[in-house]
């Protein structure tokens, strides 16, 4: 799977006020329920929180990839959020987080789901990409940067 299959321009956000991990997840849940009406904001929020309880999805260097399976979801849905301020995400390296890619997948998805996550983790491990993402204020450009085919 390619990142451009799951991330749309409408779901590429920046300058979102942070506050706390919980607030950001709450903000996202409401946002995604507006974007895709068959999704239930409550369910999205509680599932994401449940996932965080098992261990933070903050993978280090200011990046977090919250994810969960969700009902009434027919395909993988990605959303990118760049926060205005870095927030404590309980990340594995203890560093605060400002780049967040959220992934919702259908109930049936299992292994493909992990492959997608691995792909995202790989993408965000690119130091140059992270630098660019923090500099840019244009959603188009953010979207383009993330979905650009990975140079081999």
């Amino acid at each position, binding site marked *: 799977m390619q990142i451009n299959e799951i991330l749309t321009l409408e779901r590429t956000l920046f300058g979102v006020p942070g506050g706390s991990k919980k607030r950001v997840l709450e903000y996202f849940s409401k946002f995604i329920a507006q974007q895709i009406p068959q999704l239930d904001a409550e369910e999205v929020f509680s599932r994401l929180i449940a996932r965080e309880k*098992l*261990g933070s999805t903050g*993978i280090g260097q200011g990046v977090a990839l919250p994810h969960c399976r969700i009902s009434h979801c027919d395909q993988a849905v990605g959303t990118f959020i760049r926060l205005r301020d870095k927030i404590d995400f309980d990340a594995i*390296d203890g*560093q*605060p987080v400002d780049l967040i890619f959220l992934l919702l997948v259908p109930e049936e998805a*299992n*292994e493909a*789901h992990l492959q997608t*996550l691995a792909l995202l983790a790989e993408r965000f491990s690119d130091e140059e990409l992270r630098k660019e993402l923090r500099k840019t204020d244009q959603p188009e450009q953010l979207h383009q940067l993330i979905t650009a085919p990975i140079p081999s």
Partner: protein
Amino acid sequence: MDNLNSIFLIASLLLCLSIVASVISARVGMPLLLLFLGVGMLAGEDGIGLDFASFEAAYVIGHLALAVILLDGGMRTQMKTFRVGLRPALSLATLGVVVTSGLTGLLAMWIFDLTLLQGLLVGAIVGSTDAAAVFSMLGGKGVHLNERVSATLEIESGTNDPMAIFLTITLITLLTQEVADPLSALLMFVKQFGIGLPLGLAGGWLFAWVLKKLQLPTGLYPLLVTGAGLGLFATTNLLGGSGFLAIYLAGLMIGNSRSAKLQHILPVHDGLAWLSQIGLFLILGLLVTPHEMLATALPATLLALGMILIARPLAVLICLKPFFSFNWRELAFISWVGLRGAVPIVLAIFPVIAGVEDAGLYFNIAFFVVLISLLIQGTSLPWAAKRLKVEVPAEFMPKRRSLLGVFAEDDYEVFVYSVKSETLDGVELRRLRFPSGARIGALFRDHQLIHPSGSTRLQQGDQLCIIGREADLPVFSKMFNEEPQPSKEKARSFFGDFTLSGDAPLKDVADLYGLTISPDQASLTLGELLTRRFGGHPVVGDQMEWHGIRWVVVAVDGDHITQVGLKPL
């Protein structure tokens, strides 16, 4: 007087030459001990022509040097590694030495056409592995082994010398006495361990206690430890116990006493251990007469290969496979790291001193076996560790750390890190997730001391002095990791992208990723599932494949898994 000074001059030149040459050896990847041996041989009869053939002097120096090396080794062995390493190591150090020695002995008997007892003596002489050889090699190359393997090898090499010494002495006694008496041999065995073990533990405990109470100029602490250790060594030997075992155990007790004075003791003992290594191998290099050994070269090499490829692997298999949960790669690596060092060569002097027939032959054989072992196994260790995947990515360490000296025990330390990561640039200090017992003590920017507060924003290039305890290190080492991108990538691909808590209920994890689990697994945590899989004693880097996912142990607290990494296969 001139004579005395020329001895000093030669000794000091050899010492300096060895130390300077170690820089080159580190680059080439040659084991250091081999280098010292080589310098000694070059200076000897077939080289520059120094004539040194005093087995008695070598015997005395050998004992002294081994005792000092074992004391240092004991102090550096962390008792917390006993959790995974003690039982397998003791199995290797006792039964393992008997099996390796026995098989090697039979092979020697066949190759050199010896009697059974003579053959077994050769086996006993080369029976024990060398701690210093193993760890100088691994440490110097930056090879970081998983704890199960490193603890086993470390404790094995610290504890197997008494067994080899015992076997050697027994066989010499049997060879020199007309009537062989199995009962007295058994009694000697019991005495070696029965006296060495309690004396070592009691002595070590006493020394640690005295160190805590005594106030001395800092330079005297290490000397006191050396003196007390050697005194214990001699006393134990006089009483018929194993002095080598006693001094190792004493070192272990002192090193694990958590005394703040250890910071003065350890560096000096590191130096003393090096001096002992260099001295020992130089002397041994001087002692041998290379041209006389050529006749032994080929058969002895054959014996060494037999030991490396057959005897040691079989011993490892017999001692570890049935009782402990090592995987095949770990077993193979432990087999390969049966490195021989100074002990066999010193042991080979025993028969010479005792006047055993053909003692010169045994010495030459032992010398070659050690040489081949260092050459083949020593040089290939980093390669073998990589191939057999027993390495784990090393944790990043602060560029400086030192004890504060506030408390006598369990002291706080200061860790110095510099801020390199762009992610930390502009971050307020209060946004960092700090362990509760740790503080940023000072922040340096452009050579200026800045008073850190919660709202201070970090900048790249800042130097941080953090006050905390050793237990906090893993957190800081992740937060201020300055390693270049490639090694970070390596760690990421090893441990996986995501970590889950070891306490996460398995059914929640299964729910999250759509895995099916059996009813009896439903009540387990993820950590418990993995702990079972790894025989109850998991170590960082243990991994298993399950449901198309690789699950890797990222952090443990004793036998409790705290973090698990996962990545798709």
